[in-house]
Every structure is written in C-alpha cells, then in structure tokens.
C-alpha cells in the first residue's frame, strides 16, 4: 500500500526504483554505522535522499541571499513564535520535542490535476535543495537574518499541475494536540492556516524550507516542512505543513481570523502601515545588543525590486 504508484510520480515521471525503500531510509543511521559511511554512500548511491544525515546537501543560492550577517543558530532556534507549543518565545524550543516530523505525509488537494496524500520524502526527492539567506521580519517589529535550506515553492506546486481555477494556495499545519500541546488552548482557531495568491506562491522568492544552517530543520522552527515568504511578516511562514490546497477563493488565514484589524491576508512588510499597538517603521534586529538602536524597516522587507510588481495598482493601506 505504501509503495503504490503515486499519481504525482506518474506525472513527474518518477520510477519507483528511484525511491528509497522506507525501511532503508528510516534505518539509515544504523545502516551507515554498520557499513561505514563511505561504503554506504556508494552502496546506496543516488538513492539516499537529501536528508540522509542531519547535515543536508545543498547548493548556496547567492542570487537570492542577503550579505548581512546571519543570526546565530542559538538565537534562531530559541526565539520562536510557534503557538502550537506555547505562546512564550522560549516555549517552542522547550516543548517541541513531542513533534514527530518523520515520517510525515503531505496532502495536495483542490484545483490541481495531480492530487493525493504523499510521503514527504518522496515529494522532496526530485528537488535540489538550496540555501538562501533571507531577512525575516516579524510582525512584532523584530527581525533576524536566517540561512534557510529549502526548495522554491513554485517548483513543487507546478508538479501538481494547478488548474486555471487555482487562484490561491492554502496551507494547513498539523492538528494533533498530542504532538502539539499548545493546540489544547483556544489562543488561535486550530489548525493554523495560511494562504498566498497563486502568483505570490509561484514567485521565485517563496521557499519551502526543510533546513536551517545546513541541518535538518529543528522542530521548533517548523519541522519538517515550513513556508518562508521573505517579503511578508513572519507569521505568513506557516510551519509543520500537512496540506497544500489549491483554491479559487481567497482562503481564510489564522491571524486574520483572530484579529482582522491588525493582520491582513497579504501582510506584506510595510513600514507605513502600523500595527494598532506599535509602529512598523522600525525594527529591532535580534542579536544587535542592548544599546543598538532599531533599524528602519524596508518596504517588502527590502525585496521590493523583486516583488513590487505583484502588487502594482493595489492600495497597500487597504490590502495590508
């Protein structure tokens, strides 16, 4: 049943023999240890998926990377907003141990030719991972610089052949309060949902992330699969994604549902549109020290030359 030929494999021209058997993959460490690392690599050859060790193999994409100094791994992995594990910044790092990011399945549904429920490893296999150093601007007026490892979202979406009715892409986080204890609270309407317009989703900057600093993504940062849209506020970057749904209508998003006056569907970084409780004109760069002043926030988080065209003619104050 597991090795049933998946519909997207037919579509993408993947032959089943290219895919690592599940038991080989999940016992890979034992296998590597037993055979010796080099021998194992030769033996399995290209069948080892990109996640064969905790260290990922990827190429650096400098075109889409900032030259700013990245934040430390420590800062990125201990200062998180991931309410599924608690609302304190340190809660996700403390509580995300209950999440089991592997095995993981991803459902593709809605307005697409190819649909179904797939094993994440299988879905990621045809893609080459790349590292991109992006700015991350949180809606709470702080920011980081983060070396993500992932694949362009558009490349993955295209394989499922969205139809002409696919005007938007909706994303959904895992709903499982055993794995995500924060979902027992009623702080947000679980599961967490997010969405993009299809052209935003297909934009080359939109990234599906599986790693951080060349390592497999830590649970608290949204393992095993999260979205990163660097010109939007961080909360658009939905974590631990279990479903991608193509739709004709603008999907509901969690923060917009919770507090529509503060969080719009678009949520593009915009220094001219304030949050009701604070100014968005400046941001605190995490790791800059106690006495460093805030730095000015840039329109579209500094990615305006790439993405401004998506919003030509739109009133960004109205569509915040």
């Amino acid at each position, binding site marked *: 049943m597991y090795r049933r030929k998946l519909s997207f494999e037919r579509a993408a021209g993947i032959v089943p023999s290219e895919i690592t058997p599940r038991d080989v993959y999940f016992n890979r460490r034992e296998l590597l240890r037993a055979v010796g690392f080099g021998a194992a690599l030769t033996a399995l050859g290209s069948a080892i998926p990109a996640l064969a060790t905790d260290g990922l193999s990827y190429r650096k994409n400098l075109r889409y990377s900032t030259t700013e100094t990245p934040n430390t791994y420590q800062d990125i992995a*201990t200062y998180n907003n991931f309410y599924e594990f608690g609302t304190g910044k340190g809660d996700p790092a403390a509580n995300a141990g209950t999440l089991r990011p592997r095995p993981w399945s991803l459902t593709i549904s809605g307005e697409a030719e190819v649909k179904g429920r797939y094993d994440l490893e299988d879905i990621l296999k045809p893609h080459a991972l790349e590292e991109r150093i992006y700015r991350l601007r949180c809606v709470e007026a702080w920011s980081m610089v983060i070396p993500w490892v992932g694949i362009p979202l558009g490349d993955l979406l295209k394989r499922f052949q969205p139809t002409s009715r696919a005007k938007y892409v909706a994303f959904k986080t895992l709903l499982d309060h055993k794995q995500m204890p924060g979902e027992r609270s009623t702080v947000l309407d679980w599961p967490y949902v997010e969405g993009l317009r299809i052209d935003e989703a297909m934009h080359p900057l939109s990234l599906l992330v599986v790693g951080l600093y060349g390592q497999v993504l830590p649970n608290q940062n949204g393992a095993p699969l999260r979205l990163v849209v660097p010109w939007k506020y961080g909360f658009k970057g939905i974590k631990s994604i279990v479903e991608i749904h193509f739709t004709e209508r603008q999907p509901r998003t969690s923060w917009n549902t919770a507090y529509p006056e503060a969080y719009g569907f678009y949520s593009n970084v915009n220094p001219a549109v304030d949050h009701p*409780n604070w100014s968005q004109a400046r941001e*605190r760069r995490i790791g800059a020290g106690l006495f460093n002043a805030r730095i000015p926030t840039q329109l579209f988080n500094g990615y305006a030359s790439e993405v401004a065209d998506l919003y030509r003619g739109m009133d960004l104050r109205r569509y915040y």
Partner: protein
Amino acid sequence: MPAASTAANTVADRPRLERWIRFGVKPLVFGAALLPAAWLVAGVFEWQGFALGANPIAAILHTCGRWTLNFILLTLTVTPIVQLTGRSEWLRLRRMLGLFAFTYALLHFLTYLVLDQSLDVRAVMQDIVKRPYITIGFTALLLLVPLAATSTRRMMRRLGRRWQQLHRLVYVIAVLGVWHFYWEVKADVRQPLLYAGAVAVLLGIRWWKRRGSRSATFRAGVGRYARAFCSARAASQIAASTSGPPTQVASGIASPK
C-alpha cells in the same frame, strides 16, 4: 523615628509580631523584592550562566512590567490580611511593597524609553498618544508618582484624611496596569485575565467589606489603622494593645484630625 523615642516603646517591650515583621519579614521581603532586578543584571552580564535570551530588551521590559503588577497586587493584599487577622502590624509592609511597584514601573518605562526606543522622545510621545495600551500604561505610571511622593510619614501626617483618599488611586492604577497588559498581548490573554481576576478579588473584598458594615467595622477599621500609623502616639498605643480585637485598638486612638 519618633516611636522609638517614646519610653513606653523600647525594643524590649515592643510586641512580638511587630518585632518579627519589622526585623524578620520586612528585610526578607526587601531582599526578595530585589531578586528580579538582580536576575536581570546577572542576565545582562551573562554572569554564571544567567541569560536573557535572544531579545534581552524585551526580557527586561516584560520582567519589570510583570513585577510592577505583582507588587501592586501584593500592596493590595496587605489590607485584607490585616482585616482577616486583625493584626495591623502587617501594614508595616505596605509602603515598601508600594514603593517597589513604583520602582519596577519606572524601570519598565525607562527600559522602553532608553533601550527600546533609544531615547527617541518624539517616537515615545507618538506612542503615548496613538497606542491606547501605552496611553493607559503611561497614565498608570503618572498616577503612581504622587503616591510615591506622599509615601513618607511626614506627608501622611500632613495630608491626614486626604492622604487616604489620594492613595485610593492605587485601585485605579491596578485596573489600568492590568488593562495595559491585556491590550499588549497579541492573542494569549490567559495571563492578563489571571491578573484581572486577582484585582477583581482584591477590590471586591473592599467593596464587600464596605457594603457589609458601613458604620462600625469599616470606619473603625483599616482606614483608621492607616491614619493611626501616621501618628507617633497612635503607634505606641497600638504597640501596647496588640492583643485586643481591632475595634478596641481603633477606639483607643484619637483621630488625627
């Protein structure tokens, strides 16, 4: 201190509870009240593994804000304890707790002004005018100033009955402080609601007491104790009659006005 000069009030015959509070509980509470600040200082200098995390400014801001509320709640707890135990000696802790609330509120504001906003006074003024939760918080801080300024024994004596009326502002401050917290959080209002509940209980006790026995207990109760403590004579009288029920003590004291 005037009380100490009275012959009847030497250390030797000062009643046990008062001595215990004055020389045991009070220094202990004072030391404990400094711990949050000490924790922050240790964290800033990363001393012995103490750390404030990725966003130290937010950590300082939130710690000071939280302890402001904690001390306001503790200040409001003193009177019910006096009423419950009938021992006015506990009032000795109240001014100190109130002044710690003020200190942490001031540190909270200074962190915002100096560290968070880098002394950008214009930005701060805009925030105070434009952001309701900051308007409320700043109002609460301003209201704390006269209370701290009139906390001395001399001011208590000078203001007499009006001192107590003035210091009822702390009820308003408590409500504003919790409201500020409630509006500040993005979605998780559980903690602010907990504080709101505590304030509701502490103010509810007062309302209930006042309604329950408007004449005897209330008038002769806390209010008079507070005033009694302003006067040296009253202090010695209370000291001399701590074993008696509260009404008895109160009736033995001439009102300062």
